[in-house]
């Protein structure tokens, strides 16, 4: 829950939480509240947002590959955990320059995805059996980019430490995912998940997400560097965000098929 962390101050949301619980006391916060706030902090900051992303993939032999892209995000509804739209524009490697990947994340139904491949002059809709496929060959999954829905897991608060809520998440439909559980260490103040460990059905760790750097952008705690490690392939992907901005007023029409071929240059630099 993970890559995109455009934090949401969520004035509305916060007020609601403040009313329902004692936020800073933490202990009285229900686990569902914690997870909802985490999802908000990770994926719903501001009405929209953008970031320049550089991704470095390192395989078990230490060979590196880099990707550079811009990611634009727009919340479709006001409420945290609602539908969202993503527009991912690739700058480099040079041979995938201008490739665009677009997602309409829908809470109630299947997400819609598009891919624009400029060299083939081709816009494709992509249907996927599940959300847990690699994001452009990296160790991150699509679901890490767009966020995993609150209702997809059952959440249990394992413990509360000085700084973290430790939450175990168990999928409601285990067949749709490759993990049996995952445990998130959620920072008590920012509600950013700073570490997530995924366990397979033999209860072994096989995938580890760690936040390496956090900053504050326009008042939102924002992850600026994180790493996903796959212990099976012994590969890892480092992701860094720069030029993060929130509430830039991204026009709705950018997130349409038409803009795949004609990228909104102004927002991509």
């Amino acid at each position, binding site marked *: 829950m993970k890559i995109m962390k455009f934090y949401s101050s969520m004035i509305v949301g916060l007020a609601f939480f403040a009313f329902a619980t004692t936020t800073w006391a933490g202990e009285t916060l229900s686990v569902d509240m914690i997870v909802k706030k985490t999802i908000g902090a990770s994926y719903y900051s501001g009405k929209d947002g953008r970031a320049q992303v*550089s991704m470095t993939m390192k395989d078990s032999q230490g060979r590196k590959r880099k990707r550079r892209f811009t990611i634009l995000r727009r919340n479709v509804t006001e409420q945290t955990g609602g539908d969202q739209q993503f527009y991912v524009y690739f700058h480099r490697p*040079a041979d*995938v320059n201008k490739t665009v990947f677009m997602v309409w994340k829908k809470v109630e139904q299947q997400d819609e995805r598009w891919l624009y491949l400029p*060299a*083939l002059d081709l816009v494709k809709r992509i249907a996927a059996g599940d959300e847990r*496929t*690699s*994001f452009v060959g990296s160790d991150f999954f*699509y679901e890490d980019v767009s966020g995993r829905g609150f209702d997809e897991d059952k959440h249990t608060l394992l413990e509360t430490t000085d700084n973290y809520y430790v939450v175990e998440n168990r999928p409601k439909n285990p067949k749709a995912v490759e993990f049996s559980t995952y445990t998130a260490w959620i920072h008590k103040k920012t509600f950013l998940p700073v570490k997530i460990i995924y366990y397979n059905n033999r209860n072994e760790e096989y995938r580890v997400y760690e936040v390496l750097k956090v900053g504050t952008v326009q008042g939102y705690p924002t992850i600026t560097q994180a790493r996903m490690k796959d212990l099976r392939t012994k590969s890892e992907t480092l992701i860094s965000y720069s030029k993060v901005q929130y509430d830039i007023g991204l026009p709705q029409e950018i997130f349409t098929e038409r803009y795949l071929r004609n990228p909104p240059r102004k927002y991509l630099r």
Partner: protein
Amino acid sequence: MNRIVNHPKIVTFLMIFTTLVFALVAALPSFWPESFPMLHPLHVDTDPENMLPEDESSRVFHNQMKETLSLNDLVVLGIVNEKHPEGVFNRESLKKIYELTEYAKTLQWPDPEKPEEKIGVVEVDLLAPSTVDSMSQGGLGTVKFEWLMPSPPESDTEALAIRKKAKRIPFLNGTLISEDGKAIALYIPLTSKEVSHEVATALQEKIATYTGDEQYFITGLPVAEDTFGVEMFKQMAISAPIAMLIIFILLYLFFKKLALIISPMIVAMVSVVSTMGLLIASGNTIHIMSSMIPIFIMPIAVLDAIHILSEFFDRYQETKDRKKTILQVMKTLSGPMLYTSLTTAAGFGSLAFTPIPPVQTFGLFIAFGVMIAWFWTITFIPASIMFINKKTLENFGLKQSRHQKKDLLAGLGRTTYNHAKSILAGTLILTLVAIYGISQIRINDNPIKWFEASHPIRVADKVLNEHFGGTYMAYLSLEAETLDESANQYLPAFLKQLSADADEVQDFIPSIKDVFTSLENEAQNLAQSAQSKEDFFDRIENFVETALDAGSEEKLEAWDEILLSIDKVRQQGAIFKQPEVLNYIAELQDHLLTTGIVGKSNSLSDIVKTVHRELKLGEEQAFRIPDTSNAVAQTLITYQNSHRPQDLWHFVTPDYRMTSLWIQLKSGDNLDMEKVLVAVDQFFEENPPPQALQYRWFGLTYINSVWQEKMVTGMLYAFVGSFVIVLVMMVILFRSLLWGLLAMVPLTVTIGLIYGVIGLIGKDYDMPVAVLSSLSLGLSVDYAIHFLARSRSLQKEHGSWAKAQSAVFGDPTRAIVRNAIVVGVGFLPLLAAPLVPYQTVGVFIAAILFTAGVATILILPALIRIMEPWLFKKGQK
């Protein structure tokens, strides 16, 4: 000799003591490794790869490529259903296959040496219907990515749908599912070959719990190799003791004195224990080759003892004095025995000159064992006779049963005298036939064929290769030739290209010129200090990225453009994204299919074509390489949006400068592998690649063909070398070139005949057959030594060959016949071994000894008859 005979107890004690030392240095560290860290414990090695030295270049390359492309050795589990009309594509069978896959994933455990690491099955690379992705059309303009079989199908219709999807994907068709659509193969990668037997056994246990019409076949070279190791121990545990027993029984039949024949058995045991003890203690492994050491040493060890006993048997009644008789016997025999042992040791020792480490070890240790056996034979055998009660020997060697045999041998002797010319003519004809046979020899080996045809591994191999594109994997790597160019030499070309790119965008991005100038300056500095072109690129990119992040808003776009431009230049080296190169690979693959040996091949081209087709509505005409390298790159980035992005790196390196083709062969025969090698050489010769490419093979099937090749030439040199050494020894022994040459005749004829027969009957010249040449050399010369040595002395006694020959065809010939029978039959228990190489060795040694025996007692007397005037010219005075 006197001292030995006078102090038999001391001799016996010394023998037992030294043998115990040898046994202990091997046994202690094997059973209590912690207490004896300075000693080497027993180590088993069944890896045919070790037929090549570890630093052998093709082996180094093989391992390096496995690492570079993260390739693992595989266990292949094939599932076939002959009863169901749709084969395994029914609800029930696929459910089992799903379960087996899930089970296979669990076959991992902590490495005993590094507990934090796991060994066993490499889960992420397992190929099974439930672990691979399918790409298909999902409605208008939609391409669908999903697990091929996310869960077991609910109905037979769903099962058929899975087959339909898989058949459309070239990577899966003929690899995961059979071309006839009836069978499935799971490819189970292993962290190392050493775990294959454990994994295969666990799978078999799981399979045993299933009922139904499915048949399961486990194969793959690693399983074969590991299973071989297990069978090898069976061989050592069964065949070697049986050989011992048979030799014992034969000795008893000849000499009828238990007390007497115990001692040769003890010498054999002592030689085997000492040799194996030294082998283990010196840190050598029990390998396919070295596991045969005991069974080689045992019959050879009793050889000399038989001569002693035979002679003793014949002479004892003359004096009835143990000591006198044995001293006399030893005087007669010590020369020939030393030489027969030396020649045998030389024959085996010559194997040290082969380029194959396990064969070297095998040869050297047998040579050692032979000399140990010789030493204890000339010391302990006489000593042991002194232990035997005089009474026991009372009726020993009484000549009752000897007459018929004597008649038979005497008749043979007369025949050689009277029909010498016919015998030699016959020999000549046979030799010519043998030469023809040798020219027909087919050099070939295949580790799978080391198992009997009925062995489950052979059966699995046959069934799976009928259904699938082939289960023998070889890999062909292609690598871009790197220009040996420093960053400084490269700089002008680099700047020229960047400047051209900048010119192009200058109208839209005016600041590009400024940015280009500052880049140019930096590039000149960096080019001086950069280690390599790659290093230069890394540093210049870093420089631009820093500038990009720090730069002013108006220059941002210009920096970005420059960075793109640099990346473009850099990517020009990624030749395996270029359409013409990928098309060339596809042509090469088509060419491979024409060999009839390659059932299927997989390459980067197939992946690109498949993804391209699915992007273009799944239409067949879109099953091609797209026209630009950018289009290839975008096809591949699409492919990597799967559950298994790492699959791509099994085919190509991330810099796209090295790729590898997976070639599935229907046969693991070296001969077939070589045909494929030739086909590829030919292709490259006739079709120059569009870019400078280097190609090189790797993979187990290829490695096997490499050591096979080395084995053949190595053995030939070893044979020629030992032939010369033995000839020199013979000349020294007989102090005559003519006699020396004469001694070489029977073995030359024997080896010629044996290899001629191998060529004529079409038996492959394989590893055991190759080893036999040195063995036959060392053993068959023994008979000639004994025969000629005795002939010469008896000729002196009797004055003419006509008279001498009847004496020669008495005791000396009988000893040779006894020997040939004991030793030949002694090797026959190898026929009971479950592994073909051992059986081959058993049959051929028996045949060699028999032939050598016959050749000695027929050809030598015939030659002596003809050449009598020259042979005994000087000896007559």
